[in-house]
């Protein structure tokens, strides 16, 4: 088990390292940052001096080594847009994104599980058909389009909720709903199929033969077993929600990682791009690692090979 753990940890570290390397190369592809940092009337001599100061005249591998050493100290460089350490800027944007993704996840579970269970208990019913339409729509529509639709309806037309911004629970509702629909669709579909399987299992028949109330059979025996695949799905979904959050954050002016990344790319603030992407990758990899390890602990059938 320990070996498995160490192996997965090493794999994850290598993955993040690769991401850092690739982002490093991509940023160097963009061209000479001195054109951005110096005014247009600067001479070539000025550029040479600045390049030397920034270490850009050294071999790429040396630069990468220096960059890694910098990263090891948690130093991502300075954001020229904020004149603050880039790592700090990215970290500041993290809580809003995590809050949005968590809220979306809670909504996804709150809507998806009851819908999926009801659909499995009464297949072909109105609830089931509604659930299927809900799921198919949710998986087809990009979150940014739902965002705009919700803004039109709930903010502009009925003026129930703010069009964007951050701070109060009211600001959270629409972005979380727009982002959560996609995940809710997956949860509903998976709960339905998982629950349908479980309801046909012997132990459920036995619980019924034992004379347990139907509601007890469903809630205590069937649902608890049907939720296992849903839980896996949801943990993996959390990473995807961070990706989906980008466009939602842009629509709702939500001050998260996605919005920061969008602004930083448009303003050529590359230290922040590097920091934000590295941070996202690290979180993503960490979540996958935790899921794997939790599974290895829960389910002894998984090989620790």
């Amino acid at each position: 088990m320990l070996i498995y753990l160490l192996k997965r940890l090493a794999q994850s570290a290598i993955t993040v390292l690769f991401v850092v390397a690739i982002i490093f190369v991509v940023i160097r592809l963009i061209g000479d940052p001195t054109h951005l940092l110096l005014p247009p009337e600067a001479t070539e001599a000025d550029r040479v001096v600045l390049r030397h100061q920034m270490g850009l005249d050294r071999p790429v591998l040396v630069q990468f080594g220096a960059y890694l050493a910098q990263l090891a100290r948690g130093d991502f460089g300075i954001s020229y847009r904020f004149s603050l350490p880039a790592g700090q800027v990215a970290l500041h944007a993290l809580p809003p994104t995590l809050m949005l993704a968590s809220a979306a996840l809670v909504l996804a579970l709150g809507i998806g599980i009851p819908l999926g269970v009801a659909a499995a208990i009464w297949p072909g019913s109105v609830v089931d058909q509604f659930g299927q339409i809900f799921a198919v729509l949710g998986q087809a529509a990009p979150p940014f389009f739902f965002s705009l639709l919700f803004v039109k309806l709930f903010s502009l037309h009925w003026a129930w909720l703010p069009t964007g911004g951050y701070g109060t629970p009211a600001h959270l509702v629409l972005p979380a709903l727009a982002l959560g629909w996609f995940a809710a669709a997956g949860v509903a579909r998976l709960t339905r199929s998982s629950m349908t399987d479980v309801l046909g299992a012997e132990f459920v028949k036995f619980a019924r033969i034992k004379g347990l109330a139907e509601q007890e059979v469903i809630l205590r025996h069937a649902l608890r077993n049907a939720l296992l695949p849903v839980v896996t799905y949801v943990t993996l979904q959390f990473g995807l929600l961070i990706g989906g959050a980008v466009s939602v954050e842009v629509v709702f002016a939500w001050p998260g990682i996605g919005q920061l990344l969008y602004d930083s790319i448009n303003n050529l603030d590359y230290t922040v791009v590097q920091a934000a992407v590295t941070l996202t990758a690290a979180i993503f990899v960490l979540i996958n690692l935790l899921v794997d390890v939790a599974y290895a602990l829960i389910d002894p059938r998984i090989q620790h090979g």
Partner: protein
Amino acid sequence: MVDIPLSGFLRRPAEPVLKLAPLRRRLGAGRRLQRGLAMLVSVVILAFALFGPIFEPFDPQAIDLSASFQPPSAEHWFGTDQIGRDVLSRVVEATRLTLLITGCVVALAGGLGGLAGIGAGYFGGALDALVMRLADIQLALPAIILAMVLAGAVGQTLPNLVLVLTLASWARFARVLRGEVLSLRTRDFILLVRLAGASRGWIMLRHILPNVVGTLVVLATIEAGSVIVLEATLSFLGLGIQPPGISWGGLIAEGRGFLGAAWWVCACPGLALMLAVLAVNLLGDALRDRLNPLLPSDLSS
């Protein structure tokens, strides 16, 4: 005396079993209708992309300032935008670039990812480790973030966009096909061909490939839906297709500013996008049921 409680116990579980058969059939009819509609929408989209101008009532780029922000009417079915361009014509025109990009990306990602996956699964060892680590990297970042950074770096020309989207979507092909090949290569018929002295290239081309083509087709269809959404999101964020090129994502972004006064500028391309993804997804489901029912229905994880 013994009968009474027993029949009482058995009645409850017996109910769903009796109902199952007719229910299946009813769902089947609904599903057939769904798939028929999906086919219809796909054909319409294909027709729009191939013969766009025939279906465009107006020139999609023609500006008519006297007719700006007209709501949907008999003349302009989807209304007009801020400078009087016909939204319907622009929505139809957008299918071209969308389909062109999606087709190229799926072909490239499927080809590269498929090749990498088959090679990794068949040869194992260092190649396998390399391909899987590369796939890990792609899967360690949400596709949209990877695509945004790459698109921001290389500039938004059409070939670059195809490249960026390919890089953001090849890994799923590699992962799934590697798994299939891993289980195929230990099967008796492969062992027998190897025993007969066939070369590795021959085995992969003639014996492995035909057995994974079904999976590849299903994956390509499912992935096409994600690529359409990814491209639309990039274009919406201004990092995809640049004006005057017309794309659904770009049209939605244009309409975003006039959401209050002229919802149709934004809603019509959005609905078209949704319908297209819906059709492709349903088609993917249908193909999966036909070609490889064992493939999990949700491959996003």
